[in-house]
């Protein structure tokens, strides 16, 4: 990508435990462009959260972070130097809020001002009703959706260029989920932010992400425009993920379950990490790690890339 906001190159994260090293991220190469919403999707254990925590310097000191990261063109170390420019929101808004202080008190800490009008504006910007009254409310008086909005307000109060949302809607009700996602989209548009939305739910990705990166076992296996990837996935894992969703199958048919389980990160993997579970695996797959290659047509800004040796570079050839 030309001139990305955040650029991750072969980022790896290894946690040290008394039982040895656990490689949560094995080499993620991703770019986040200015003003775009990038979806990062994968199941538990794929390393999607850890990657961005490493970018923000939020991994434990004992964790080893490798690879290159740069922000707005300038290289950075994983030491929290990104803090001023990026904010992160998490899955459980209740846990992010201190129950003993009011929303206003906590917002004041983050926004650096006690001016109630300014604080009220922050809350109004995320659609909280009666923002001035809300300043004096305690977190437990809010519903889950309202708390998540408050947390988003906190994140935005720091004026970030990049917002990272880690499973922001997983703990919310269905109707609230849609509202919060739409809020994120509005906020992105009005402030021209870049957003990374991490989720295991393809529905979430489809709703607001411009591009999507699919992660498996600590590596990116497919990336491209959301519509393209979700309607015509090229990587067998992406295809399997889509086939496993009950929605798309007719009621009463077999869903495409994926046999086996995600590698646990204790041992290094030679070759494609998905090969043991892949129906189409060949010897070539286990020989060496498949590189990300462009598939299909390359437009000016976006390219559809896949890490699978069985996918050709010409539009005609794809795995059926």
């Amino acid at each position: 990508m030309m001139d990305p906001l955040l650029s991750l190159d072969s980022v790896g994260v290894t946690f040290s435990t008394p039982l040895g090293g656990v490689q949560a991220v094995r080499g993620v190469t991703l770019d986040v462009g200015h003003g775009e919403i990038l979806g990062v999707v994968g199941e538990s254990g794929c390393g999607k959260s850890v990657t961005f925590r490493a970018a923000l310097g939020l991994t434990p000191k004992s964790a080893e972070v490798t690879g290159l990261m740069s922000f707005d063109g300038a290289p950075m170390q994983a030491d929290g130097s990104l803090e001023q420019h990026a904010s992160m929101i998490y899955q459980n808004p209740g846990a992010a809020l201190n129950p003993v202080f009011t929303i206003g008190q906590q917002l004041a800490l983050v926004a650096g001002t006690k001016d109630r009008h300014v604080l009220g504006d922050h809350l109004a910007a995320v659609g909280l009703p009666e923002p001035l009254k809300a300043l004096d409310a305690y977190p437990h008086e809010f519903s889950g959706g309202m708390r998540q909005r408050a947390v988003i307000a906190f994140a935005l109060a720091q004026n970030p260029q990049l917002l990272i949302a880690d499973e922001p809607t997983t703990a919310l009700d269905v109707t609230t989920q849609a509202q919060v996602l739409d809020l994120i989209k509005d906020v992105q548009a009005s402030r021209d932010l870049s957003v990374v939305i991490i989720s295991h739910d393809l529905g979430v990705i489809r709703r607001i992400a411009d591009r999507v990166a699919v992660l498996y076992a600590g590596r990116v296996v497919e990336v491209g425009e959301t519509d393209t990837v979700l309607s015509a996935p090229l990587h067998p894992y992406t295809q399997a993920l889509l086939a496993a969703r009950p929605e798309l199958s007719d009621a009463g048919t077999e869903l495409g379950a994926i046999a086996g389980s995600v590698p646990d990160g204790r041992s290094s993997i030679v070759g494609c990490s998905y090969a043991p579970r892949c129906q189409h695996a060949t010897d070539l797959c286990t020989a060496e790690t498949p590189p990300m290659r462009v598939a299909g047509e390359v437009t000016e800004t976006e390219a559809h890339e896949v890490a699978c040796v069985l996918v050709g570079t010409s539009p005609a050839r794809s795995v059926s």
Partner: protein
Amino acid sequence: MTAVIEIEGLTVDYRIRQGGRKQSIRVLDGLDLVIEQGETLAIVGESGSGKSTLANAIVGLVTPSSGSIRFEGAELVGLKGKQRRPFQRRLQMVFQNPLLSLSPRRTIGFQLHEPLRVHTDLDDNARSERIAQWIDALELSEGITARYPHELSGGQAQRVVLARAMLLEPSVIVFDEPTSALDVSVQAGVLNLLRSLKGTTSLTYVFITHDLAVARHLADRIAVMKSGEIVELRSASALFEDPQHPYTQALLASSLKV
């Protein structure tokens, strides 16, 4: 079709302490529901709708303030511990998080023998035989009986919990969010398994979920709950094609489609 569970006027109140005073919150208000033998009924709703409370009340974990729950003709409300036991065998519940539903310090084998010990007169060998059959049916390895819960993956734990329920040969199984805690790919396997286990038997499934897609996929009928009441109860296909109640319509509209 015979009715296996008949609920009439079910009312459940929770007492909580708020700001130093004791208050009562009405979670279910005069709920009526008839569940037919052999069907798969999905109860769909958001948090606060009372769906989990309904499931807990059916299984006896929550005592209703008033109303009646008849199971295979017998009244369950008002029964104390021992009196309830004969019915508990035929009315099982599977909880949301399989790993947390298993006792941490007991082997899987112990936890599979336990329900049989409580409810049947089978001797040790007979129990082991039946357990082996179900372990096989659920595609688990034999050695799993020696393991502890923390050694299992989410999918394995879910199968173990299913085995524990199936062992007793119940007539009704209530599932509380059976797949929420699982990854999509594992969820798919579990849903397939649930369907194949039920097969053409007269087993009745009642499952609580907030995921409409899962409900549509498995259920014959769907009951939509809001604020302690059932607002719509129709066959799955009818509900999706032509939702009547505004709340159902709102739910469908906001569910995230891929």
